[in-house]
């Protein structure tokens, strides 16, 4: 479904990704793990077009995305739940969801999708008129995911959905990810919480200093000594 | 002069054109005693600091022999002092504030033009004369309100108004200044309605007059007479364009626009001069109504070039400041000797208004159906003044 070939990208003089390649099949859940500053966020940003591709190719369902401007990437069915949630704090929950359905194609199905998101997260329905900025971290994460779902995507990109959250909430968030999966969405997730994320996804890539170091089935990675020593700290 | 900025439209530009016409005419006749007049124009942009910078440049860089012009009194005051201190010669054409000279004892600054105290005086004296016969009121029962823009000009005139009207025994029921760029004068209108004056003495520039008259009409303000004092009221065509008949019978105090005077009352030849000026102004601007500022610019320049300068050259051997000063002090043009009617004789050094023309005077004019008539002084009258406003007039009581 999504395919990256030899992707390089960076900020100004600084290069953050060096020829990374990766693919995600329809219906799969894939994780990207790696230490701080490895370029995980950068990778997701390249996919959703926020930062430009310097080298390599990027395609979604066979359609090249190399030259597509950022705001049109979402039309191809890619939705991005950004790092730190990034809700619009002074809009209500429902208004946040409304922005998620900004695309003309999504607008016409706004009511239907809203119902779907509310059925997925009844808590959001309860809080529909609350300002997003005043909700707890876990609730905000729900809202952010809901917002991404409003565009009716095929592929969901998630960037560290558990960061900075209390342990119970972290568990809730991973439960969320499982639910999303079971609804049939394809997911590409970046996580620091390796032990838990590997239990949710099918496959994972290990990114280090902008390069893909390893990839494989999550069960294998979880069993790998190297990963356990370097990244799980046991 | 101010060729840009808010003052430009208030008459400064018209005065500059008048000045240029005078210079052109002299040059066409071969200049003064063989010297061509080369004007170097400078735009003060309606800003005092620019005026000062330009004066510095003209005197020191362009090395002009004398400075002439200046519309705004706010520029006139500092310039007069600067130039005087530098012992250069300054001939003020348009600015009218009495403060330019009052107690300053300037030596090299001269102004044949009227000064603002006289404006205030004229309207009050006129009222005192017409109160009994026309308005059927004792002078002491006459209620006047004085309103003015708060610039030097408005303030100067209003002071004159207040002093003289009180002296004559009238009741000054309101005196108030406002900024010419005010966004709202409705509270002033409300206050006026509460004070119920018979006559309003108004000094202002164009935008504020328009705003005031409009808000007055909308606010239901009524009065017997409106007397304006130059500046914005000098540009009657503008007011007519906006208000049509509503400004009928309004008064304006100003040095007279030369074309309004009866040429027969002046010295021979002066009438032709006026006609020539009018012809050229119309040709240059394409405008039908020639504002009094043009006459001011022209007249003062003409006086200098045709009277003072020749004498300085012939008698004192040149046109340095000293020679010009001596020549100016000897000026003695009798009444009727200039296109604006008044004579010229400067107050001597030591006088509290040293350098000011002692013989200048403004007139009170009335606009009747688009025409300007002279209502005061009685000697120059071309109309029997209509006061109070006739029934049916938008502002009539």
């Amino acid at each position, binding site marked *: 479904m999504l395919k990256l070939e030899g992707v390089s990208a960076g900020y100004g003089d600084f290069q953050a990704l060096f020829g990374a390649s990766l693919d995600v099949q329809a219906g799969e859940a894939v994780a990207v793990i790696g230490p701080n500053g490895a370029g995980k966020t950068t990778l997701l940003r390249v996919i959703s077009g926020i930062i430009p591709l310097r080298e390599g190719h990027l395609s979604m369902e066979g359609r090249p995305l190399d030259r597509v401007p950022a705001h*049109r990437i979402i039309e191809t069915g890619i939705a991005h739940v950004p790092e730190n949630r990034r809700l619009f704090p002074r809009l209500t929950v429902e208004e946040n969801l409304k*922005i998620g359905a900004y695309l003309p194609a999504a607008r016409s199905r706004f009511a239907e999708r809203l119902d779907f998101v509310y059925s997925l997260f009844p808590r959001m329905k309860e809080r529909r008129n609350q300002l997003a900025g005043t909700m707890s971290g876990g609730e905000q994460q729900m809202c952010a995911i809901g917002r991404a779902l409003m565009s009716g995507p095929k592929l969901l990109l998630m960037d560290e959905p558990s960061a900075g959250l209390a342990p119970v909430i972290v568990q809730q968030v991973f439960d969320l990810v499982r639910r999303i999966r079971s609804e049939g969405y394809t997911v590409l997730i970046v996580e620091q919480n390796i032990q838990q994320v590997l239990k949710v996804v099918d496959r994972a890539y290990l990114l280090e200093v902008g390069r893909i170091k390893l990839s494989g089935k999550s069960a294998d990675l979880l069993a790998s000594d190297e990963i356990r020593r370097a990244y799980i700290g046991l | 002069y101010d060729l840009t900025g808010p003052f430009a439209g208030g008459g400064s530009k018209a005065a500059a054109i008048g000045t240029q016409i005078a210079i052109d005419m002299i040059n066409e006749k071969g200049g003064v005693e063989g010297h061509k007049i080369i004007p170097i124009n400078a735009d003060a942009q309606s800003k005092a600091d620019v005026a000062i910078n330009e004066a510095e440049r003209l005197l020191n860089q362009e090395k002009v022999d004398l400075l002439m012009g200046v519309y705004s009194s706010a520029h006139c005051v500092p310039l007069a002092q600067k130039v005087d201190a530098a012992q250069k010669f300054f001939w003020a054409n348009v600015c009218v504030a009495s403060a330019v000279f009052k107690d300053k004892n300037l030596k090299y600054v001269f102004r044949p033009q009227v000064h603002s105290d006289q404006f205030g005086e004229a309207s009050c004296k006129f009222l005192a004369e017409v109160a009994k016969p026309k308005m059927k009121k004792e002078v002491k029962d006459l209620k006047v309100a004085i309103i003015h823009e708060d610039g030097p000009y408005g303030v100067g005139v209003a002071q004159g108004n207040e002093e003289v009207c009180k002296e004559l025994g009238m009741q000054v029921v309101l005196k108030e200044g*406002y*900024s010419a760029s005010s*966004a*709202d004068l409705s*509270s002033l209108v409300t206050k006026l309605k509460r004070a119920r004056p018979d006559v309003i003495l108004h000094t202002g520039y164009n*935008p504020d007059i328009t705003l005031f008259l409009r808000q007055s009409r*909308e606010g239901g303000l009524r009065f017997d007479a409106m007397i304006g004092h130059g500046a914005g009221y000098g540009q009657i065509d503008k007011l007519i364009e906006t208000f049509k008949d509503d400004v009928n019978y309004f008064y304006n105090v100003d040095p007279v626009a030369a074309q309004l005077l009866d040429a027969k009352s002046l010295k021979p030849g002066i009438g032709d001069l006026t006609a020539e000026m009018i012809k050229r102004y119309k040709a240059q601007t394409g405008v039908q109504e020639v504002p009094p500022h043009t006459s001011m610019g022209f007249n003062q320049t003409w006086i200098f070039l045709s009277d003072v300068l020749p004498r300085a050259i012939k008698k004192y051997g040149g046109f340095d400041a000293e020679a010009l000063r001596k020549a100016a002090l000897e000026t003695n043009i009798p009444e009727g000797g200039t296109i604006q009617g008044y004579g010229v004789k400067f107050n001597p050094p030591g006088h509290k208004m040293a350098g000011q023309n002692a013989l200048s005077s403004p007139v009170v004019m009335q606009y009747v159906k688009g025409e300007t008539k002279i209502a005061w002084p009685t000697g120059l009258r071309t109309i029997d003044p209509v006061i109070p406003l006739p029934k049916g007039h938008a502002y009539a009581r």
Partner: protein
Amino acid sequence: MDTIFDIYLLEAIVNGVLLGGVLGLLALGLNLVFGVIDVVWICYAELVMLGMYTVYFLHVVYGVPVLLACLGAVVVVGVLGALLHYLVIRPVLQSEPINQLLVTGGVLFFLQSFATLVFGIEFRNLGLKLPILNFGEMYFSYARVLAFLVALAGMVGLYLFLTRTFLGTAIRAIAQDREIMPLMGVDSRKLYLVTSGIGGGLAGLAACLLVLQYDVHPAIGLTFGPITFMICVLGGLGNMIGGFVAAFIISQFISIGGFFFHIEWGYVIAFAFFILTMFIRPQGLFGK
């Protein structure tokens, strides 16, 4: 304190309310632009000035009916607003806020001089005579009442637009997080341009109502500029309803202050009140 006095005071108050309508309308567009783009258009009042010229030229010189001329002005100034954003604001969006403030200040100089160059310094007006409204002893300006109503309508219309439509919601959202808008499928450049256009259009609308009451000249912006900023800040920059209410508060100060004291003291009181308010509620009366 006789009854007559009260009537005049009442008239002053009502006049203040009507003036508030005019100022509120002026503040509307400025607030919108600030709220969304986070840039203060110092030259806002100059856009209004150009709008007034547009109405003047269309109506007086080309004989277009007033209503159409007004529509023309809204469109013209709207386009100008978008152009201003495209040519001037966009290049400095990433630089320091002070530079953004100043660049529009430069535009102010430019527009003012440019208007002088092109239109000359003459004062111009439509020469329309509007009917007079009076209730007993009290008189009101027709133009003001009109302005008040239009301002109210503009306010309500804008509010509905911002809260009910997708575009409006996106406009409010972009003010809070510029960076992630592409993730929502929103082209933020286009959105800015649209917002600037609407801001300009509101300036054009204000121009239409002002030109009924005031002469147009190149420096007219100075009459309204500073007071409009104060109002926007007082109401909480970017807070449209706050700005609207603040317009009425300030106009009461001007109107009643001017009624009891000299007119300029009305302004001094208004400005001093502004400073004091800043000390008591730095975020503006209605901020956050």
